[in-house]
């Protein structure tokens, strides 16, 4: 076995922030996960349904389904003048970062030694669509703020204005793998010594009806008029992903750098791969490569993995290839569930949200149920079905894949 990176096992997760449609904050989120609750329904946020198109049973096309955040609780640290022009993605970023910041106690850290990687690109689509529509007839009155706010990096500007982060901050785009790529980039930033503490965030991808139309047209987004049943990863009756608004943030640093912190878990290894494919279809070769790469860096054999948190979107082909990759790598004894069956697919946020789901389940010693898994594609795998199960997880693997041939995997361990 190849030698490991000498300090690979020194990195730990010391803070979590999470905002989803099923709950804001880590306690509410874990409770929702273990309950197997959901927030799916026809989407109501302005700009989520085709304007003037008849929808519903009597219309030409069914409404787009998804899980939307109810009321987003904003921290007092964010001044009202900032909120006025902050997009939904930006507000979710600020609220989620606030939780992770407080959880990790970052107020005492030198701001010049803190970095921020925000996973996601083109995340504010709905707000931009709304703005374009508003000014279509009178473009000369377009707000000057648009000149900075249309860029995803506005989230970096806002987050570092409200929180003292002075090491670096940038976005990192990798489609639905963005959230995990951000975590792996944050690991590199701490490991290299660029910063002592790095926050990785999976940004809230705010879809407009345009993206929903395209996802549906390409067969990626599940149709259907039964919101509770539409999202069914790894079930034989699955028909695509169902969108779910989410934002997650984790704080990564060297173990023991700040005494008194009780980390959620340890980073063991990670890997990314490109399939050489611009299209949305997954690749068995790419997924096995990242699984093997992450396990190799972690110094783990497949049989030593207790739990797999898969990408599992509910995609016809994606779920099939992912299970094939797990079998190919011998990951058939590890318990497995599907976080997206509860949260929906957060797209750019998903990778971070699922690292958080993994860390919270590890700490709780309970695995969350998989909703709608009535007829598993591969019944031989040790699924967590309709009810949560107590399970001691020492080692875990999570996968994230993105359109354009991106595969990524991460290995985690309890502390």
């Amino acid at each position, binding site marked *: 076995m190849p030698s490991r990176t000498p300090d690979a096992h020194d990195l730990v997760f010391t803070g979590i922030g999470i905002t989803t449609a099923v709950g804001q904050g880590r306690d509410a989120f874990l409770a929702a996960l273990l309950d197997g609750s959901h927030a799916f329904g026809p989407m109501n946020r302005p700009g989520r349904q085709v304007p003037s198109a008849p929808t519903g049973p009597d219309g030409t096309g069914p409404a787009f389904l998804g899980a939307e955040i109810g009321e987003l609780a904003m921290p007092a640290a964010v*001044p*009202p*003048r900032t909120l*006025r*022009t902050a997009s939904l993605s930006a507000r979710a970023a600020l609220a989620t970062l606030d939780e992770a910041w407080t959880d990790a106690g970052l107020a005492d850290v030198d701001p010049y030694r803190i970095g921020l990687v925000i996973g996601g690109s083109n995340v504010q689509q709905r707000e931009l669509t709304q703005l374009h529509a508003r000014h279509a007839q*009178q473009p*000369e*009155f*377009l*707000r*000057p*703020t648009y000149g*900075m706010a249309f860029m995803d990096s506005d989230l970096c500007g806002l987050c570092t204005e409200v929180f003292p982060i002075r090491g670096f901050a940038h976005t990192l785009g990798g489609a639905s793998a963005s959230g995990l790529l951000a975590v792996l980039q944050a690991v590199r930033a701490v490991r290299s010594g660029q910063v002592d503490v790095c926050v990785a965030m999976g940004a809230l991808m705010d879809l407009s009806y345009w993206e929903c139309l395209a996802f549906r047209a390409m067969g990626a987004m599940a149709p259907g008029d039964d919101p509770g049943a539409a999202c069914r990863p790894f079930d034989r009756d699955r028909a695509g992903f169902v969108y779910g608004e989410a934002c997650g943030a984790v704080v990564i640093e060297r173990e023991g750098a700040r005494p008194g912190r009780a980390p959620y878990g340890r980073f063991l290894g990670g890997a990314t791969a490109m399939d050489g494919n611009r299209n949305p279809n997954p690749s068995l070769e790419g997924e096995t490569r990242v699984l093997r790469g992450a396990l190799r860096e972690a110094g783990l054999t497949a049989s030593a993995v207790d739990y797999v948190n898969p990408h599992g979107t509910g995609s016809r082909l994606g779920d099939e290839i992912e299970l094939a990759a797990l079998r190919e790598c011998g990951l058939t004894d590890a318990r497995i569930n599907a976080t997206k069956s509860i949260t929906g697919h957060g797209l750019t946020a998903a990778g971070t949200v699922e690292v958080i789901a993994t860390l919270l389940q590890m700490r709780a010693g309970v695995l969350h149920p998989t909703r709608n898994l009535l007829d598993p594609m591969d019944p031989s795998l040790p699924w967590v079905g309709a009810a949560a199960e107590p399970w001691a997880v020492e080692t875990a693997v999570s996968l994230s894949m993105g359109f354009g041939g991106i595969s990524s995997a991460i290995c985690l361990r309890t502390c």
Partner: protein
Amino acid sequence: MSTQDVLKLIVENTREVLPELEDHAFTADDSLKELGANSIDRAEILMMTIEALSVSIPLAELADARNIGELADRIHAKSNA
């Protein structure tokens, strides 16, 4: 619409952009800059004002106004042109 009405509109928009000025007693001598509005805030306030009045003025023409009274005068002059 009088100059006073334009001034009132500028004050309203300033309070929206800078909510911390809610209790400030505005006068025509107030400078947006001195009230804490940065260049984007100022452009935002002016754009909101000229949109509400449906008057098209390049913002550059308002850049050297010293206070909100002067801004109101210039926008009022354009709106009646």
